[in-house]
Structure formats: C-alpha cells, structure tokens
C-alpha cells in the first residue's frame, strides 16, 4: 500500500518550465505531513528528470512518474523529513 498512497497535495505546474516546477515543489513539500505524498503535475519534459534528481539531492523519495491522459506527467514525491 505504501507505494500507492493518494497524494495529500497536488502541485499544478502544468505549462511551467523548469526550474519553476521544482521551485514550487520545494516550497510546498513542507505543507504535507511526514511520509505524505505530493503529486507534481508538469508537462516540461525536464521535470521527469529533475524531480527525481531533486529528490535524490534533498533526500526525499521519488515514488513514481505517471503519464497524464491529457499530456504531461504526475510525479509523486514522498516527504521524508
């Protein structure tokens, strides 16, 4: 179950170019409780690489990236601390 947690918060960065989706994620991850999941919606292809890279650098957990039917991705991040 842990890997399929419903996001506690959705960050809508559709139409925004990197690094803006990463800046929004960094600002908002502390708004959810520990171990909760934030979903970043983005359609800049750079986000698919940059969100997991941010997780690695900031020691949060990249849960998975899922293609959205309308284009773009939902990239799920678990708050680790």
């Amino acid at each position, binding site marked *: 179950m842990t890997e399929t947690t419903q996001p506690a918060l959705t960050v809508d960065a559709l139409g925004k*170019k990197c690094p803006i989706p990463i800046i929004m994620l960094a600002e908002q991850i502390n708004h959810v409780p520990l171990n909760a999941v934030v979903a970043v919606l983005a359609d800049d*292809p*750079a986000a*698919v690489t940059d969100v997991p*890279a*941010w997780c690695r650098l900031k020691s949060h957990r990249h849960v998975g990236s899922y293609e959205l039917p309308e284009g773009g991705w939902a990239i799920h991040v678990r708050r680790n601390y």
Partner: protein
Amino acid sequence: MGLVAYFDAASTEPLHPQAREALLAAIDVGWADPARLYNQARRAHLLLEQARTEVAEALGARPDEVSFTSSGTQAVHLGVLGTLQGRRRVGRHLVTSAVEHSSVLHAAALHERDGGTAETVGVDLLGRVDPAVFTEAVARPDTALACLQTANHEVGTLQPVAEVAAACRRNGVPLLVDAAQTAGRMPVPAGWSVLTASAHKWGGPPGVGVLAVRKGTRFRSYLPEDERERKRVPGFENVPGIVAAAAALRAMTAEAAQERSRLSALVDKIRQTVPKVVPDVEVIGDPVERAPHIVTFSCLYVDGEALLTELDKAGFAVSSGSSCTASTLRPSHVLEAMGVLTHGNVRVSLPRGASAAEVDRFLAVLPELVRRIRQDAGVT
C-alpha cells in the same frame, strides 16, 4: 567588460597559432586538385599526404586507414552507416551508449528508419556505461557495429573503451570510437575498428573531420562513391584545412601531457570550490576518470539561460545542457540518461592556455550571479 574568458573548448577550441600559420601558407600553395598530374596538383597532393601521415601517427593509425571528412559529425555519420553497410550480411543490429554525441544517435535513428535495429546502453550517475552490460548487448549474434565515445562531451566522464573493445573483439564486432573530445589532448585508446574525430576541437580549423577505418574492417560508403579519400568520403578535399588541422594536432599533442595536468588541476579547483561557494549545486560527472578540460555543474532552482546570460555579461563564454538554452525543448539527452539535474546547468571547458586567474575570477563572480537569479525567482 572588455575581457572575455573563453571556457567553451568542448564546443570548439580556438585556432592554434601554428594552425593559422599553416592554413595561410597552404591556401597559397595547396589550392590545386590533389588528384591531378601537374606541378601545383602534385604539391597539393604532397601536402595532403604529409598531413595524413602526421594525423595518422598522432592518432595511432596507418596513413592509408585515415580519410578526411568535412566535419566530425560527417565522420561519425559516414563511419556508422558505412560500417553497418559493410556488415549488412552479418546483421543489422547497432549498439551505442545512451550518452553518445547526437551525430551517433541521429545516424542510429536513420539506420532504424532503414529497417535496422539499435540499442542504447544506459549509463550510471557519473555518465559511464557498465562494460558488462555493454558486452552483453554486443554479444547479440546479429550485432553489426558498436559505438562508444572516449569521453563524454557534456560531462567529461571517460568511457571504458579498452574493456569494451576487448569484448567487441571477442564477439567479432567492430567498435567505432568517437574521440572528438580527447583527440590531441589524451592518447587514443587502443582497440578501435573505426575512429572519428574533429579538427576544430583540437585547435584546427572548422571543416575538417577524421574517419579512420582499421585494415580488415568491412566498410562500404553509405553515400554515392567517388574516387576521393579511398572511396569513403565523397568530394574535393579541403587541403589547406587538412594541413592546418595536422599542424594543430602536432602542436597540441606536443604540449598535451603538460597542458593536460595544468588544466586538470584547474578543473579540480572548480569541482571543489563551486559546491563550497554556491549552495544547492550538483557537480556532475566522474571527478577523477574524466577528460582533463571539462567540468559541468547544475544549480538547483536556477534557469540555465538566465545564468548563461549573466555569465556572458560578466565576460565568460560557457555552455549549458539545460533545455531552455538549446534549440529543442528537451534537456540534454546526456543529463537525462544520467538522471542528474538538467536545469541551471553550466559546462565549463577550458581551452589551451586558460589561466588560473580567469578561473579564479569565474569562481569569484559565480556565487553572486546564482544568488541574484534565485532571489529574482522568489527562492529563499
């Protein structure tokens, strides 16, 4: 700011003074058609063959294995497609790393459109292929060609060419080695079947590439053949450019050992200092097993284009793999394949003669530029 520090040698190295001298002399005496039989033609032919011998020696090839192309990209296109063509009966499978130069990947895409198959072998966080994984890919019985660069053009990481070459030999698969980033700077690793390089990256003029095909490697030009360059490269040879390219390679190779350790120490300094003076930075690529002159880092929350613009204003010519700075909307395929941060990316590549004072000035101005861009973006 009148003074510009040129830190983009991986794109192109400034023309070496000895290449300039050779170019001007060869324009005067080497303009005739080297394939003809009169006095001026014989002189052009002699210059061309002297240059071929010198380039061959510097790259560890025989003169009759070396052909000159109009660019490094053309050398790769002709090398990849010509070797695949020559090996068509064996199979139509091509193996490359995921971080090859776009010229390799574009040739692979054309091969696939022609009905061939291609596999890209992934890389680790440092940008290096795992020789065991590459070997496994090459072992497929219909593999016609494998391609691996000596060093990555964006992050500098050296590839395990010797190990991969041994595996290719065991499997009877030719290996194309793209030495564009290291030719003239480091010795060429042994074991290649096809070698490609680009003169303007070692201080030669633009318009000259090298395609070397080892004796015994099956090769058939993908393009309509003519009699030039052992039927591997069509068209009239750029004799003055080739003469200048050979002069630059001779000069660069002579200074390489010394310049390599000097530039490498400056790169070490950048690699060590940047994370200390700029918060939230990822320095990318292998810190030790790398080309001597290339270092890349990504600054979190920073727009790569904004940073390049600010560095340009401050008198620094650098490049970036961030998507906003490229002609495409996608970030660099190298950074993507490595899984490292693609935004806020800066590649510093030091040309011959880059000074410690210029590097110090770069390290002095960078923190404030990054701080300001972050502040403007509302990052606290």
